[in-house]
């Protein structure tokens, strides 16, 4: 059956809410409207206004009440409408959601899932195309997951909701309409493991979320030229599956990290740092980064020039091979 990423996540929400009545879904416009991307479509009808509801327009309120609901015993899923609108909730996420379990010496569990549609490439206006993952990954105490396929959309969302730890769940919005042929429910690899999406010998491409497809396309293009790229979908940005990353580089000797976020202190920095720490003698070239630039996210008409694409990845490959 052809399932889009948005449908897969929607189904995961439905199944989780059916299986466990402590699961709640709330946020701006998630009720009657079904979310601006329709990811929560039908939930309010199925589970009532008590379990799927529209909140006031206040993101700190959404996350802060999620924490209170979780303390009570619920398992809240909170939607932030867009990446760029999570920032009002920053304090609640960083100072409480991430830290309260640790603060409490483990007596308070916060099984909260924060859903965030993220990334660009959809021609949107400002603040609707950002990639804020570094903010969450640098914040200790959170798990940060991001699916790159509809299968993972379903399976990783179920894992996020079942986790007793707070999870930031980043949904690559430009892939919401990407389809897979799959029967739901489906269970993929454990959510905190990286997965090799394509094996290769000449270099490793590390990618996640919206860039998984792009990386696979780059690998296709490279294969046409006789270069075989291994594509590793990181899936979990925190924790980061360092062993899988190192294993791939040990096979290929070269690494390129791909992400939409700006380069400086994007995930590429951390992946590069870990690779050179852990596989120093295996590296035949520096770890390179095919990323967005160190400028604010551009206006829609210029985003194609800003976002990493197959060409930028192949440029990196060329540079890597030149060492």
């Amino acid at each position: 059956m052809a399932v889009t990423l948005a449908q897969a996540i929607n189904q995961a929400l439905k199944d989780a809410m059916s299986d466990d009545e402590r699961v709640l879904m709330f946020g701006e416009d998630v009720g009657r409207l079904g979310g601006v991307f329709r990811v929560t479509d039908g939930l309010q009808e199925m589970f009532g206004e008590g379990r799927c509801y529209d909140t006031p327009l206040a993101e700190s309120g959404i996350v802060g009440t999620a924490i209170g609901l979780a303390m009570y015993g619920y398992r809240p899923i909170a939607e932030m409408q867009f990446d760029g609108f999570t920032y009002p909730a920053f304090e609640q996420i960083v100072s409480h959601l991430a830290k309260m379990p640790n603060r409490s010496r483990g007596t308070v569990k916060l099984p909260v899932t924060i859903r965030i549609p993220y990334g660009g490439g959809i021609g949107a206006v400002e603040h609707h195309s950002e990639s804020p993952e570094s903010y969450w990954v640098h914040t200790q105490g959170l798990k940060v997951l991001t699916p790159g396929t509809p299968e993972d959309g379903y399976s990783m969302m179920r894992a996020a909701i079942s986790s007793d730890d707070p999870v930031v769940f980043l949904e690559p919005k430009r892939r919401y309409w990407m389809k897979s042929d799959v029967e739901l429910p489906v269970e993929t690899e454990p959510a905190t493991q990286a997965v090799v999406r394509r094996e290769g010998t000449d270099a490793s491409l590390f990618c996640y979320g919206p860039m998984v497809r792009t990386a696979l396309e780059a690998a296709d293009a490279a294969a046409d030229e006789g270069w075989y790229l291994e594509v590793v979908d990181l899936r979990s940005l925190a924790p980061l599956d360092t062993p899988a990353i190192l294993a791939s580089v040990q096979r290929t000797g070269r690494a390129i990290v791909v992400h939409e976020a700006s380069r400086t202190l994007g995930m590429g920095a951390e992946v590069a740092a870990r690779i050179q720490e852990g596989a120093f003698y295996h590296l035949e070239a520096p770890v390179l980064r095919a990323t967005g630039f160190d400028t604010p996210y551009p206006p829609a008409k210029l985003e194609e020039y800003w976002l990493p694409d197959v060409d930028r990845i192949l440029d990196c490959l060329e540079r890597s091979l030149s060492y």
Partner: protein
Amino acid sequence: MGRTVTGVDSSDEGPPGDPHGWLPPDEPVSLLDPDGSYHEDPEHPLDLDDEQLRELYRLMVVTRKVDREAINLQRQGQLGVYASCLGQEAAQVASAYALGADDWIFPSYRELGAALVRQVDAAGLLHLYRGTWLSDHDPYAHNFALMSIPIGTQALHATGFAMGAKLDGASIVTLTYYGDGGTSEGDPHEAMTFAGVNDAPVVFFVQNNQYAISVPLDRQTAAPTLAHKAIGYGMPGLRCDGNDVLGTYAVTRRAVERARRGEGPAFIEAMTYRMEAHTTSDDPTRYRTKEEREEAAKTDPIARMKNFLTARDLYDDELEREIDEQAQELATYVRDGIYDADHGDPMELFEHVYVEPEGHFEDQAAQLRAELDSAGEGS
């Protein structure tokens, strides 16, 4: 009709300890009925001459025309998205018109009407929605700040600016727009707090259009009205019929002049209705009925002003033609300015990040330059 708004009068020197003078009236101030009949209100005398009355009408009609053009442009793929102000023309035009030339406006993303009062280049304004740049007008040329997308955030900029004007001894008032949904965010709360304790000359103008995307007003507050929030910051909470251009003008004007006299900030709730979808990406059939929408159309702000002008013999076919032509002209100008407008130079992405650049973009700029060159060669 329209209980008097106390607390906004300069003669009302009662301390804020007397809360009753600061509470909003049961009914919003309204001078024009939906059919266009006019009520005298001694608290809100009109200081507008015939030309100005016609001007208010003209501005509303032009706004509607350009707004429609923008929707068309979006349908034709020329804009990525657009947030219409259909139905809110009176609220925007009247409130902006109540300001002096040196006063500043801090808009959200829906204030085409206010921008047109300020003669901001409407094609430039739409570049935000086209995505050719993130904004395209000089705020200092029009005393009209950049449109602000993160909800409610601009209320703080307006407050800070007003604090600055006061500190500088300048006779400048600021007015900031946000929506009913916006009142739930923390920023407008903090803005009203700062404005209150600093007696800042700022007017918080909320267009209560009943919805925040799909979420109706009753999910945003349990307060009797949004204007009731004002007393919690020690400022008057005013209400007006936002579809009545004269009532809105009168209420805003008093708040603005009061602020200018150094008597502090005010909050205005303008009752109106978002007749279009939230944006062109939205599907309002999912959350409201056709009937509701049709009912709301009966309160149309433009029709009633036309009736008013007609009754006063200020409206005739010639005026109609003249205004329609002007509106068409501006719409055409906007269309021409947007249609197939150049996407701009990608290299500009590196140009404005810092006023004082440090050269650390050079490698990334070079990378983009090379990418552009090789794409050019390839194509």
